[in-house]
């Protein structure tokens, strides 16, 4: 009965922070200690006996089943890692109690979602995540933030309504909302007429939250406007919650083809916009999209290695994307802008450790060995059969490298010490998994998963991809073709959700 403690401890700590506002910061530390203890228990050999439970002792038909599978373990680890880094990052700032409360609820909701095995429970937690991140994005009350987060709320709410319709269709035909029961019903009659409709509604609804083009057109604005620590949380962790739900749905419905197509659109679209973006935080937000593309293509491949590779890449992406966002925030504090040109021209004002963190994050995200981006991408490259997948993954890698090549002048001299960098401890927390990913991955997913990373063909391929990306950057910056940004307004976003739903439905119906 230990599983409900994961989310509940944070909800209670959030309530405690409301009651004793003066000691709100202390609840962050308590929550962190509780999480570390719980995750340690979850990883201990005794954990298999608490791996699955129905909350409150209800029957399986109407109860909410919580399960601690490898997906949940992976994301719990990521949650604790990011929690630690973000708390260190925020520690020297003056935090308002309401900020702490929202942060507690955010972590609690994330933990509840990764454990949940019940569709309606998933709906409620996704809505809770929407509300909490809506408030956190606009926490500084700047107009840009308010508009970005209002757009997010409207689009996410429509998406969740679509998800609720899917939940209703599923319940009408299965009579239960537990994932196991739905899986049995689908397996018993895979040709049933309700399956494409329910799957399309559920996938379209959750895609709005998962950072998938063309459903998540709110993402670049919201993730780049949010305060740095919140961006790190949203991009590293909260966006993965949609992916978690998609992984669970892919275990129930036949979604491989849909996920591959969505992955191709998301990855290539995100990379193209990232290449033309001139603002560091906005570029990072677009790269959240492109890296989600990797995860989706990996999920679409649907074999054992790819599934583990997806989990490993989710963990790796969380660590380096959070590092990049935190370092971008520190660079903004030093320079007063996140425009890349401006950062480069006043790079002497950025603290050295922040520049080192940006460099490490860049090396990891473009997939250079021996950092975690490469180690986690290698199983995906290895498992992706067929030339379409291979070409897609290579194109994605080239796009990523081409857009991060813009940052290279940032790392040129002079290397003088400027002030002291108050948040470097949080960089260390995130840099550890980036550098030491091989043993972590081996311990989490077994020794077979690290074999592709040891393959020198894949290593050379990754280096060649990065080199090609750099060449492409040299070519691209001479061109004046830039994709339009008006796509990311409210009405196109709304329209794209509906259109995407129809497309997914037709794909499932006919394919």
């Amino acid at each position: 009965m230990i599983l409900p403690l994961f989310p509940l401890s944070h909800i209670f700590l959030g309530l405690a922070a409301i009651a004793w506002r003066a000691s709100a910061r202390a609840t962050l530390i308590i929550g962190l200690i509780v999480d570390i203890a719980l995750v340690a228990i979850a990883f201990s050999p005794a954990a298999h006996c608490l791996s699955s439970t129905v909350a409150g002792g209800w029957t399986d038909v109407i109860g909410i089943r919580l399960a601690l599978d490898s997906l949940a373990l992976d994301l719990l680890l990521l949650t604790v890692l990011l929690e630690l880094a973000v708390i260190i990052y925020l520690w020297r700032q003056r935090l308002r109690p309401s900020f702490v409360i929202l942060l507690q609820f955010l972590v609690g909701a994330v933990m509840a979602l990764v454990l949940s095995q019940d569709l309606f429970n998933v709906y409620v937690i996704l809505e809770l995540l929407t509300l909490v991140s809506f408030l956190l994005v606009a926490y500084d009350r700047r107009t840009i933030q308010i508009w970005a987060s209002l757009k997010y709320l409207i689009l996410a709410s429509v998406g969740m309504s679509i998800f609720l319709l899917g939940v209703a269709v599923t319940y009408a035909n299965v009579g239960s909302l537990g994932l196991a029961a739905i899986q049995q019903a689908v397996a018993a009659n895979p040709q049933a007429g309700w399956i494409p409709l329910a799957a399309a509604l559920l996938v379209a609804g959750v895609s709005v939250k998962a950072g998938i083009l063309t459903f998540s057109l709110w993402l670049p604005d919201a993730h780049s406007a949010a305060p740095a620590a919140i961006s790190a949380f949203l991009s590293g962790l909260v966006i993965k919650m949609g992916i978690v739900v998609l992984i669970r749905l892919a275990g129930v419905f036949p979604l491989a083809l849909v996920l591959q197509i969505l992955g191709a659109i998301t990855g290539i679209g995100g990379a193209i916009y990232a290449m033309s973006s001139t603002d560091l935080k906005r570029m990072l937000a677009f790269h959240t999209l492109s890296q989600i593309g990797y995860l989706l293509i990996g999920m679409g491949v649907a074999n054992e290695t790819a599934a583990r590779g997806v989990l490993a890449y989710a963990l790796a992406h969380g660590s380096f994307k959070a590092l990049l966002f935190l370092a971008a925030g520190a660079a903004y504090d030093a320079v007063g802008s996140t425009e890349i040109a401006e950062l480069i021209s006043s790079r002497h004002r950025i603290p050295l450790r922040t520049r080192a963190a940006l460099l490490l994050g860049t090396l990891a995200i473009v997939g250079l060995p021996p950092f975690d981006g490469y180690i986690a991408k290698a199983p995906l490259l290895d498992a992706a059969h067929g030339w379409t997948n291979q070409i897609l993954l290579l194109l994605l890698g080239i796009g990523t490298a081409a857009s991060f090549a813009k940052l290279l002048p940032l790392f040129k001299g002079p290397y003088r010490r400027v002030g002291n960098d108050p948040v470097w401890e949080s960089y260390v927390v995130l840099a550890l998994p980036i550098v030491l990913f091989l043993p972590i991955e081996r311990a989490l997913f077994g020794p077979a998963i690290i074999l592709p990373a040891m393959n020198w063909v894949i290593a050379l391929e990754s280096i060649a991809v990065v080199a090609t990306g750099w060449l492409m950057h040299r070519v691209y910056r001479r061109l004046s073709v830039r994709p339009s940004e008006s796509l990311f307004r409210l009405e196109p976003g709304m329209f794209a959700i509906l259109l995407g739903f129809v497309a997914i439905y037709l794909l499932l119906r006919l394919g």
Partner: protein
Amino acid sequence: MGWLSGTTVAMVLFAVGTTVLIVRKDLVIKLLALGLVNSSGILFLISIRFQPQMEAPILPAKVGSAIADPFPQALVLSAIVINFAILALSLVFVMLLVERYHSTDCERIEHAVETEKAMLGRRDRTVNPSEGDTREETR
């Protein structure tokens, strides 16, 4: 009138709501349409397991009569509360926007925010960040 059931009404409401969300530019009307979309989800959920002859699932029901499935009706309570919270919070944010721009017109606000974003980039480049940065005081 066999076609006139909760599910068909819900689908019509959903279509109307999303159309208004796309077509109309006024933010308050957009939020009303959002309420419509959310309500359509709720209506759909409670009417999927219901037929006109069914009794409400409240004891004591008439013996031998069919009873509507109580499970969606229990679920729908959370959905209603969530939708209330979403509408309330988004109205607060619309109020903040109206205070600053004196308009609820979506296009105008979008235009103003975009110019502000462009201005911000330029101002930060010229002004010393320790003076121009308002982030410290709002935290």
